[in-house]
């Protein structure tokens, strides 16, 4: 298996999807078992990958390259580094969990699973693509199934933001449509999501093509481009080309992240999507944005990244606070989680913006952690929805009597989402804080307040769902009793807590991916240029205090062995 691990991970779901085409919907069990076994293969391979990835060696491993078009310089070039590995793992975990979460889908089961598998496989494909073309290819491929998943198996969203009259379609022909959240049908969501993401994907594509064209290397291969492409100092449109490319790539991909104010597709999309899709969507699909920015912008345009990344640092504040506030106000469970996701993605941007070893590692771990946390929450919101057929928080309540298991898991999910110690989120959070403080103290404070806000709205939602008086209408609701129902939650919880308590390997893996990157980005700079005047106000006692870890005088050689053996 070994070196082909990536292929197993990537193509097992595709193969599953292919196999499903030939199965009839009359045999749902067969459908599910095919889907789950495909996902299981992928999951196993991902775990193998994760643990077989050698952080000491670092770099891209398990590389496979297949020529696709010689003329255009396109090849199916797969490989993972320390950043991709955990995300691949997260994707396959969420896929596996998602298949069990959607175990009870009765309508067109086969098709659902086909699209779900394709969605996940495409996402995984992005995480392991080392070729810009295929990166983009998988990126788009992961967006398109969302349309079908939302449009066919989604649910209409009601009562979001005091929306009015969801059924009155006449509104669509009037100006009222503009302010009409009544257009919150699943079709609206699906259309909005796909159009929005595709539009911005095209923006990113433009960036990619500019890279392709102006690098003059006739290749889409990231590894080649990052070594040889020289895009600096080409004047264009009153500025330099690299900046234009960077901005195109950044905003093109950041829209899926989603960075404020490009987030509006996301909550509505989450809300309309079926649970498993929401999980994958919020869990890993949004990370495509960060990941692609890291892969494309960070790798190929390091200097420009250093120059322009403060944009993200500014926007992330808005993401955090704004998303938190809206989540606080929303009355729909999935909107709450959706906005919380878009708020939390701000932390990832913060970690990325600070551009140092710790914070960027924190950002990557946060992506992984958030995948688990938000996956749990969406799974449970989905369960509640399946039982009560409403997501309107005010009309729910007291469900903890009916579903103790779910409510207990929900607590864990909330805690994970808040970054309660003991979950891997906490590790990520503290790394982001530690890393970013010197460069962006204000943002860190804002992020901290964001945590408080997160707790406020998640607890508010938890109280709304599970405590207080129960509506007798929902007395038939029942808990997740069977293994199939509990399995996904337990997997995600155990992963979240397991890595929260033993994050060493995860950390090593991520560090091995982040270190060369940060070194690339930061080392080209003379020390004087960054960090001066920020952070420490240290005085004569220890003059070196004024420098920050960000601007370390020399790269700190990353040697996991040392830290692993430690002292004593």
């Amino acid at each position, binding site marked *: 298996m070994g070196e082909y691990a990536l292929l197993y991970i990537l193509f097992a779901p595709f193969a599953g999807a292919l196999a499903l085409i030939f199965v009839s919907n009359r045999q749902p069990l067969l459908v599910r078992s095919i889907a789950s076994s495909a996902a299981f293969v992928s999951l196993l391979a991902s775990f193998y990958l994760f643990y077989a990835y050698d952080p000491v060696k670092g770099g891209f491993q398990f590389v496979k390259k297949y020529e696709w078009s010689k003329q255009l310089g396109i090849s199916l070039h797969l490989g993972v580094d320390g950043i991709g590995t955990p995300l691949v793992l997260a994707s396959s975990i969420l896929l596996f969990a998602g298949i069990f979460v959607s175990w009870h889908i009765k309508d067109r089961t086969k098709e659902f699973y086909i699209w779900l598998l394709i969605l996940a496989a495409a996402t995984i494909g992005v995480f392991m693509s080392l070729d810009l073309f295929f990166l983009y290819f998988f990126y788009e491929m992961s967006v398109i199934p969302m349309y079908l998943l939302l449009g066919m198996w989604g649910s209409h969203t009601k009562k979001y933001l005091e929306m009015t009259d969801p059924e009155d379609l006449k509104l669509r022909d009037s100006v009222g449509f503009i302010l009409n959240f009544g257009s919150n049908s699943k079709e609206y969501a699906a259309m909005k999501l796909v159009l929005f993401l595709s539009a911005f994907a095209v923006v990113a594509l433009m960036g990619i093509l500019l890279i392709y064209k102006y690098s003059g290397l006739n290749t889409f291969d990231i590894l080649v481009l990052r070594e040889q492409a020289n895009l600096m100092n080409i004047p264009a449109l009153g500025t330099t080309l690299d900046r234009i490319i960077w901005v195109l790539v950044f905003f093109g991909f950041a829209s899926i992240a989603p960075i404020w104010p490009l987030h509006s597709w996301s909550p509505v999309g989450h809300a309309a999507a079926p649970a498993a899709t929401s999980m994958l969507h919020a869990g890993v699909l949004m990370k495509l944005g960060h990941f692609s920015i890291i892969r494309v912008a960070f790798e190929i345009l390091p200097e420009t990244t250093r120059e322009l990344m403060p944009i993200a640092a500014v926007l992330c504040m808005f993401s955090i606070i704004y998303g938190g506030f809206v989540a606080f106000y929303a009355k729909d469970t999935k909107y709450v989680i959706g906005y919380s996701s878009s708020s939390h993605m701000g932390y990832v941007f913060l970690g990325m913006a600070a551009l140092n070893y710790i914070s960027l590692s924190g950002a990557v771990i946060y992506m992984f952690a958030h995948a688990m946390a938000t996956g749990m929450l969406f799974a449970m919101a989905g369960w509640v929805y399946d039982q009560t057929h409403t997501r309107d928080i005010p009309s729910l309540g007291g469900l903890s009597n009916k579903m103790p298991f779910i409510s207990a898991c929900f607590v864990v999910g909330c805690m994970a989402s808040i970054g309660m110690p003991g979950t891997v989120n906490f590790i990520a959070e503290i790394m982001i804080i530690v890393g970013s403080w010197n460069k962006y103290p204000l943002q860190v404070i804002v992020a901290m307040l964001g*945590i408080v806000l997160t707790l*406020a709205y998640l607890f508010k939602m938890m109280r709304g769902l599970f405590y207080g008086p129960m509506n007798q209408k929902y007395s038939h609701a029942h808990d997740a009793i069977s293994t199939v129902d509990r399995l996904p939650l337990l997997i995600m919880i155990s992963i979240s807590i397991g890595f929260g308590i033993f994050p060493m390997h995860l950390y090593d893996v991520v560090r091995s991916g982040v270190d060369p990157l940060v070194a690339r980005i930061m080392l080209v700079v003379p020390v004087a240029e960054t960090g001066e005047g920020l952070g420490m106000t240290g005085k004569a006692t220890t003059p*070196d*205090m004024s420098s920050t870890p960000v601007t370390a005088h020399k790269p700190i050689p990353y040697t996991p062995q040392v830290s692993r053996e430690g002292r004593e």
Partner: protein
Amino acid sequence: MLEELTAGFPILSCILFLPVVGAAVLWVIDEEDMVRTSALTIALVELALSVFVLLRFVPESAAMQFTERVRWIPALGISYHLAVDGISVLFVGLTAFLTVLVVIYSWDTIRHQIKLYMMCLLALETTTMGIFVSLDLILFFVFWELMLIPSYFLIKLWGGGAERHYAALKFVLYTLLGSVFMLVGIALLNINYHQWASLHHTDQIYSFDLLDLLMVPIPVSQQLVIFWLMFLGFAFKAPVFPFHTWLPDALLEGPIGMAVVLVGLKMGTFGFMRFSIPLLPDASKSETVVMVVIVLGLCAILYGAWMALVQADFRRLLAYSSVSHLGFIVVGLFALNYQGLQGSLLTMINLGFSTAGLFFIAGFLYSRQQTTQLAAFGGMAKQMPLLATFFLIIGLASIGLPGTNGFVGEFLILLGAFTAKWWFGGVAVLGVIFGAAYFLWYYERSMLGPLGAAVKGTMSDLQPRETIIAVSLSVMILWIGLYPSPFLRIMNGSVQALVDRVSQETKVSLEGNRFGRGY
């Protein structure tokens, strides 16, 4: 023999995780009585272990004892580092002790979901224990935050008030708000360590370990920033004066057991003593900090006492009296001299018996009249002489009558404060007067005088279980009051080390580990 057997035995880990493991065991027990018995057994075993630790603890020593240190996240310098010294070891015993009492108290006062309640309680015990025995700041923070979860549910699910949801959320939010700032402070400490370590090429370039951090000098300006960040964390939890409004709500709405833990275990002020002061000695003794914090403390003393004077609800009264006591503790802490620190430490322990004891009393009253409003009582001493007696004993301890534990602590604090600046002590002394006033006022109106008009039926005197609680508290109160020597001996070494740490110049701390390793 016993020592040989127990050498190297991770007793602190056992203490730390026994309750939570016990809670997991409770999960599978269905029968309610069995649940209660098991919970009590677990709590008692925990108490036994804690007492064992206390007995084996070498007094008059500043050293960290029973150290357990396992690298946890080596890359970030986070380790699983448990140890107790004179500052923290008493809290271990206190936590175990109070938990036993709370379990006993909750025996039949908790009427629904007893299993879950006991589980939460035991989980709470683990987290509070964790706060007291962690030497790694992240580990500490872990427990600090985790503590919120059981607390939240205890308040929310078993609280008596109508506003309990609000109170629970308020408590959690408040604490979290503070602790996120603290987290930033912790991060800054780590960054500082990192800079130092990368300059000195140590093999550990990141560390959150208290002992490591203590070796590293911190520029004063940086210390101030970190100090205020951590101050917020601890002050919100403590709660120090202007941050106290969650306390009355949480105590009034939450169940008695939770209230006992909240007021009995002074985690916030412990944090000052454990982390803020030793880590940031220069900031702690800087003029502004001392003035601001002590003035806040003095405000708290008077404010809490005055507020307590006019409260008609006993639990609110206790909440404000707790604020007042916290004022004393803070004043003592930031007097930054031996008596102040020792007094504060002792007072933290004392309140675990006295204020927590009064909450038990409040609980006894509550279980009889379903309220602690003054209006529902009056002349209770006639019907419940035993309760009235214990009420008086514990209450007098809380107002610091000589011969009770309260006096020893308060006396030391006042002495320390007075030594630091005469008017610190001078103002704080007023709190002594008001303390007597509000307690006696409430006692007089609830226990003495003719039978109250609103008293419904005849109230039974203390039940055996309640008597056990009251008696054990009273014994502890009188023990510490009359013969505090064992307790003081336990503290002395560590307090001395702390005083040395604070009084020495920064330069000295550069050279390393007078405080650190020998500690």
